[in-house]
């Protein structure tokens, strides 16, 4: 049965309701629709009823029309419902299976997470982090995973990056979902998807990357090209380097830097001959061809600069430095030769001046760069070169830190200690103090590059950009701690310093704490009294107290003196933070004793002094009664 006349009537009635039934008498379209219904009315009683209703409506006085219209409409609707079609003809294509999982998670558990992932506003990053900490598995739930992927396009980049990091942690099982709904012409969200797929699938992502490349636009195209660098795609990338422009060409160059082969080397040789700016892309490769290429380019550039002598213009310096930066971590034979040549010309290099006529100090920068390069390259020929340079110039400290790092990476711990500890004197020398101090600083600068991983306990030499970690040949010799705690000089100052609560902590003690194994009782015995004494001398009670807590020690007994020595009245909130940290590692009674020392020191800034006089005795009382250390709010509420 053709029901179109019925729907025509319905449509006209609805128009009449919107326009007003007072105009109904003039609505010829409704009258025409009513006419159209007549054949149906003859065929079925229910349509007959509608027809009668319509006739009544069209002939009714205006005041009765609204009710009659709604009555007819009710009837029309009821018929429309009963005549509704169902189903759909055609071949039923089975649904795919998703890659997520199903967890019986309640609304109260899902909704805050979905809200954080799909809306805007503050506190969302924290909500996602806290949900991840509680139950990372929930992020694989098939209702949450799409929202997590969708949040890669969050306008708050911290959120988008967090989601990318979480997706990476969830592993390759999320890849099908990342590919689903992928839009090659999309924005940053799609570029992040590409980065994730490439990171999760590695070289096996190449076929998919090649498939999407032709349609990829803007950010996505650059991401796809960059990702192609992970596979063996030299030919394609060489083509792209020729055909792409701007950001995409940079991406092609970045990817090409990770490729190998004669054609690639030839391309780069030609490219750098035309323009040296793209040499920055060679930073992240250690391939011999790249190393040779950079060494050759640098040699020419340095030779030219030294031949010219005198002042180096800003542009020339920038170009030179971009070459040197590219040399970081490279160790082909020609690169080693370049370093030897540089060492031989160091006196000339030290004479170079900047564009204003001031010393350029390029020699010092290159020495630092060599240390960075060594940390980047790890054990290998560069270690040999560093030891060779040190052996050649043992009378100066220039290559000492390099020799320390190279030795730590390649030689037994005891040998390293025996060789280099004499450069850290424990008795103040009478002669040649400045020179000896330079050697002392050289050793400490080398040790600064070594860190103890707190999770694994391994000693590591760390390189930066790209981040690398090289385990030392053996764990550090424990004798270093005694030597260092008894060292005459607590320098270098420039070796590193930690600023906390306005305290400038010297690099020396920071180096010590980077190396320390807090679980070793022998080291703890050695360091605890040392740190207590340093705390008293420096007045840096915030930093040293926390270091003592880390070693299971306490500043009790020197706390008051250190506060007084600090030279600045304390902020009460910082005191609360410190005592709150103390309460986490000390007993309640020990924490109470520290509170008492703060009270005795009576060295709180005047704005907080009256509050301190109230809260500290109360806190001591609470702690002695076995109650936990109070919240800051508890102190704050007592300020009146």
């Amino acid at each position: 049965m053709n029901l179109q006349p019925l729907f025509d009537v319905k449509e006209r009635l609805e128009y009449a309701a919107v326009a007003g039934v007072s105009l109904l008498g003039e609505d010829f379209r409704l009258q025409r629709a009513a006419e159209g219904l007549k054949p149906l009315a003859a065929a079925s009683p229910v349509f007959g009823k509608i027809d009668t209703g319509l006739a009544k409506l069209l002939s009714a006085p205006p005041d009765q029309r609204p009710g009659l219209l709604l009555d007819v409409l009710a009837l029309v609707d009821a018929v429309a419902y009963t005549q509704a079609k169902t189903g759909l003809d055609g071949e039923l294509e089975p649904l795919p299976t998703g890659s997520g999982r199903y967890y019986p998670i309640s609304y109260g558990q899902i909704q805050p997470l979905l809200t954080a992932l799909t809306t805007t506003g503050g506190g969302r990053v924290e909500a996602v982090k806290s949900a991840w900490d509680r139950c990372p598995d929930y992020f694989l739930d098939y209702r949450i995973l799409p929202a997590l992927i969708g949040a890669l396009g969050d306008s708050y980049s911290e959120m988008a990056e967090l989601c990318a990091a979480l997706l990476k942690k969830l592993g390759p099982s999320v890849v099908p979902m990342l590919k689903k709904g992928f839009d090659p012409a999309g924005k940053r969200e799609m570029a992040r998807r590409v980065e994730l797929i490439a990171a999760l699938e590695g070289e096996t992502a190449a076929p998919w990357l090649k498939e999407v490349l032709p349609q990829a636009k803007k950010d996505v195209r650059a991401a796809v090209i960059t990702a192609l660098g992970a596979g063996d795609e030299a030919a394609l990338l060489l083509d792209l380097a020729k055909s792409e422009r701007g950001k995409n060409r940079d991406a092609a160059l970045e990817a090409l830097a990770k490729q190998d082969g004669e054609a690639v080397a030839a391309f780069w040789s030609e490219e750098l001959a035309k323009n040296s700016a793209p040499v920055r892309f060679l930073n992240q490769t250690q391939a011999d061809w790249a190393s040779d290429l950079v060494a050759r380019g640098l040699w020419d550039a340095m030779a030219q600069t030294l031949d010219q002598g005198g002042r180096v213009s800003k542009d020339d310096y920038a170009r030179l430095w971009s070459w040197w930066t590219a040399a970081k971590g490279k160790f082909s034979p020609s690169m080693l030769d370049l370093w030897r040549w540089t060492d031989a010309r160091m006196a000339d290099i030290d004479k170079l001046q900047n564009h204003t006529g001031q010393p350029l100090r390029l020699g010092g920068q290159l020495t630092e760069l060599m240390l960075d390069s060594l940390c980047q390259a790890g054990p290998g020929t560069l270690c040999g070169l560093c030891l060779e340079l040190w052996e050649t110039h043992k009378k100066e400290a220039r290559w000492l830190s390099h020799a320390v790092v190279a030795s730590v990476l390649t030689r037994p711990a005891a040998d390293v200690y025996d060789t280099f500890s004499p450069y850290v004197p424990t008795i103040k020398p009478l002669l040649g103090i400045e020179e000896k101090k330079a050697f002392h600083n050289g050793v400490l600068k080398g040790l600064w590059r070594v860190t103890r991983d707190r999770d694994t306990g391994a000693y590591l030499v760390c390189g930066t950009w790209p981040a690398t970690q090289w385990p030392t040949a053996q764990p550090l010799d424990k004798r270093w701690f005694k030597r260092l705690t008894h060292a005459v000089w607590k320098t270098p100052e420039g070796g590193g310093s930690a600023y906390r609560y306005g305290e400038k902590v010297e690099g020396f003690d920071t180096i010590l704490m980077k190396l320390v194994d807090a679980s070793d009782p022998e080291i703890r015995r050695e360091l605890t009294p040392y740190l207590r004494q340093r705390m008293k001398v420096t007045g840096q009670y915030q930093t040293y107290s926390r270091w003592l807590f880390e070693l299971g020690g306490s500043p009790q007994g020197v706390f008051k003196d250190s506060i007084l020595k600090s030279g600045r009245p304390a902020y009460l909130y910082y005191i609360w933070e410190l005592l709150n940290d103390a309460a986490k590692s000390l007993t309640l009674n020990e924490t109470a004793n520290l509170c008492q020392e703060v009270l005795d020191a009576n060295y709180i800034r005047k704005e907080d002094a009256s509050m301190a006089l109230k809260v500290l005795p109360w806190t001591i009382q609470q702690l002695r009664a076995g109650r936990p250390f109070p919240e800051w709010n508890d102190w704050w509420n007592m300020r009146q």
Partner: protein
Amino acid sequence: MEWTEQFILLQAPNPAAAENGRKLSGKGSFSAHRKTADGTLYWAECAGSGKNSYRVSIDLSQPDAPVCRCSCPSRQFPCKHALGLMFELAAKKPFETADLPRDIADKRARQAARAVKKEAAVEEGGKPAKPKKPNAAARKKKLSKQLEGLDMAQRMVDDLLCSGLGTLAGSSAQTFDKLAKDLGSCYLTGPQTTFTRIALAVRAVQKDPAQAEAAYAEALRLLVALRSTIKKSRVFLEQKLEAGSYSPEDSALFEALGGVWKLDDLRAVGSFKENARLVQLSFDVSFDPAKKEQVERGWWLDSGSGELYQTLNLRPLKALNYVKGEDSRFDLLEIPALYVYPGEGNRRVRWESASTRPLLPQEQSVLPTLAQPGLAEAVKHTKGKIKNTLAPKFLAVLVPIGRLGKIGEEFVLEDSKGDRVLLRNRPEDGADHACVERLAMLPARLSAGSALFGLMFYDGRDRALCLHPYSIVTPKNVVRLLY
């Protein structure tokens, strides 16, 4: 007793309170953890913002209904401190055994005395309490007032249609709102809400003309329902006045006019069921802009009869923090007395008390078999229900799954007889309820003998009867597409 995160969330008035409780527990705010030897009371001190700690306890005399007490001034119940103590229990923190505190012992004694008194009253009189004698004069006055209100509602409908829905803007909309409010004073909150919905629908057109067709259709559907309510209610109320019967009756009109059912009234009209066992199939939350309240809706399957019910927890926006929220439930609920609201299809239920236990595998395997025999039956049933002008234009159904698939861009369900229905998101449910696409993300292939639960509705866009899927009921579990 197992303290799970889900159990704690169920006790919480809202997720934020639970989160705050979790933070308190996480940062070690609790001290002096104690419990009684019989494990029926746990208490501790919780550091608050004041100088004295709060004393918080959880009384498990009735494990399904923990009684939380706290010395804090919060109006939320349970407060974040009590929820925090629950997280302490979930984290299995050590609680020292101690004697029952005096104040709690006193409270328990008073509670026991009240229970004994109630029991004694039952034994003496045979009934727990004497039913309140209705005030006939007041009720008669109310019915008369309602009849007056219906006349006013009729006039409003007539006026609105005479001038046309399209004219409902500016000052006429304000007058309309004012008149709608007057209906509230005539005890006609149902029609009052309908008028508010109509006004909202028309305003939606003014804000976004692209929505005109759908919004006017919705406004007209409401007007048709309202006209029907007015007509039927007038007859209903006049008959009641004539008969001098003023108590609520088993009729959907009572609620349509704005009446609120009390459990005693439902019991009085015999609309209740004993020893029901319910399994939740789906849970969702939406916002009702006309009533300015959050609607927390649960869909339940009676594992005995196969009937489908809904629970509605209405939380006014103004009191959102003080009215306890509901949450998804995964256990089986055993309910001594299930009160069922009058009406046809999508019937609302409530209960006073229920015990929970995990659903046994054999009980779960029976659930899909409670589905309709086929799609044809479900379609017929739905058409029969939604054509009633007073009924909502959707019906909750549980239908057997033969095959799930796609034809072009449309998701389709086919039953074992080859009948098909389109699977679509119901536009009125809003974007946050859109879940059809999740069918293509289901983690595993559906096991044979599964059923699909959802809302069957009429889609005016192409005049098709469609199904908005909410969950898949398999012999092994219920896979929720929403919550």
